[in-house]
């Protein structure tokens, strides 16, 4: 007995609801994402503009190099190039050595947060951008880059993470700006960039709140056990204007001392919360992304 074409098509018609839903879920997500990504994309463009302007300035005044001192838990060195003097000794670079066998996302975040505490970084620490790649089978970090700003001291902090070390650059953004006075055109560019960046900054995520909520990251990672890599990104997003605009396919979690899944979205309407942010997980290189919305009380 041979299977014929009609039977084959009939077989395809028998694909069950769960599988169809799985394939359609992505449909909802992709359409929702187009709405939802407007703000993050705009913020990314802003940061790119800012980054380009700042890097132009830095290329003129500072030769950025990271020379970590091997063998010490936390080694500190100041850049001692001639150009650094232009910045009034305002830039410092720290290298934190880690276990070369790999470090979990939580241990890396613990380390960075402890370092901030040790260096007296204020609580007003906001994430400008963040991208961390993980190996989901054991949640170890492959690499990552986090850009933050201490809003009290106006210090820009760049954290570069590799498998066995973390390099933290801290730079007084006020001083950086004053050096741009040497060039009127560049100053103008910087002012424009700063205006844009200020708007971006006021709606950014606080590092400490993200750090507390980040315990959820391994749970997300565990959902991708069969994937080779995972990219975790936190993208902010100001208060969402309309809960109804959020697709029901996006799980919502709420952080209030502990992380809980929101079962009834109606309760979000009357709730006061500080802000909400998305955790976006993407499996690379095939880029299947999942978003989680986290409200922080």
């Amino acid at each position: 007995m041979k299977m014929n074409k009609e039977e084959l098509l009939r077989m395809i018609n028998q694909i069950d609801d769960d599988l169809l839903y799985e394939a359609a879920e992505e449909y909802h997500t992709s359409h929702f994402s187009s709405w939802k990504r407007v703000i993050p994309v705009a913020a990314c463009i802003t940061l790119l503009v800012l980054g380009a302007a700042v890097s132009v300035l830095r290329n003129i005044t500072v030769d950025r190099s990271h020379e970590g001192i091997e063998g010490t838990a936390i080694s500190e060195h100041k850049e001692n190039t001639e150009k650094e003097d232009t910045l009034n000794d305002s830039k410092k670079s720290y290298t934190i050595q880690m276990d070369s066998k790999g470090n979990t996302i939580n241990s890396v975040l613990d380390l960075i947060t402890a370092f901030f505490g040790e260096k007296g970084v204020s609580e007003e620490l906001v994430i400008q951008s963040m991208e961390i790649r993980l190996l989901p089978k054991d949640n170890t970090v492959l690499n990552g880059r986090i850009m933050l700003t201490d809003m009290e001291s106006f210090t820009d902090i760049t954290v570069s993470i590799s498998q066995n070390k973390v390099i933290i650059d801290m730079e007084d953004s006020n001083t950086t700006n004053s050096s741009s006075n040497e060039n009127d055109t560049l100053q103008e560019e910087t002012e424009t960039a700063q205006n844009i960046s200020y708007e971006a900054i006021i709606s950014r995520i606080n590092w400490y709140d993200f750090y507390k909520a980040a315990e959820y990251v391994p749970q997300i990672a565990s959902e991708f056990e069969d994937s080779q890599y995972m990219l975790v990104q936190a993208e902010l997003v100001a208060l969402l204007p309309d809960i109804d605009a959020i697709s029901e396919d996006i799980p919502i979690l709420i952080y209030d001392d502990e992380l809980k899944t929101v079962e009834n979205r109606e309760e979000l309407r009357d709730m006061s919360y500080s802000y909400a942010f998305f955790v976006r997980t993407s499996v690379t290189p095939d880029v299947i992304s999942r978003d989680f919305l986290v409200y922080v009380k």
Partner: protein
Amino acid sequence: MKDEDIIKLYFERSERAIKETQLKYGRLCTYVIKNILKDSSDVDECVNDTYLGAWNSIPPSRPDVLSAYLSKIARNLALKKYEYLSAHKRNPEVLLSLSELEDCVTDFASSEIRYSDTDLSDFINRFLRSQKQENRMIFIRRYWYHDSIKEICKRYSLSKSKVESILFRTRKRLKAALEEEGYEI
């Protein structure tokens, strides 16, 4: 509105059920139908028939997954319409995706039906669940939703050659699985 609430409206025979279905799943139904039919008036008609289909079947049906339930109604209506439409109105993508799938069988002449829905359903769902999630989703997008290769590439950010290769390999595995299961192809 949650799916359970919409279904409740159907059970109460409230006409608001249609409105809420349209609000929440109108775009999905249109999308599924548009992949099969190109003419916008046919698409609109099919979308409306989908709501009517849901109205007539709920109750007694109480779908577990409303989106999939509506997609199935929409797709079946669109395929029925497709059969009756003249060739120039047909969406070449459907013809293409169906012809790709025909690689899995060699006998197209017979119209005799010999395998039961239950057996076929059991087989295909078991087969798809044994595939990697990504491969499974791409297969369903192509052969159930009739997405074009280009749309799949965009949706999953994959290259054309990768999508084609995934589909080719999945079809090959499907053919092998059919043979292994005792289906003659």
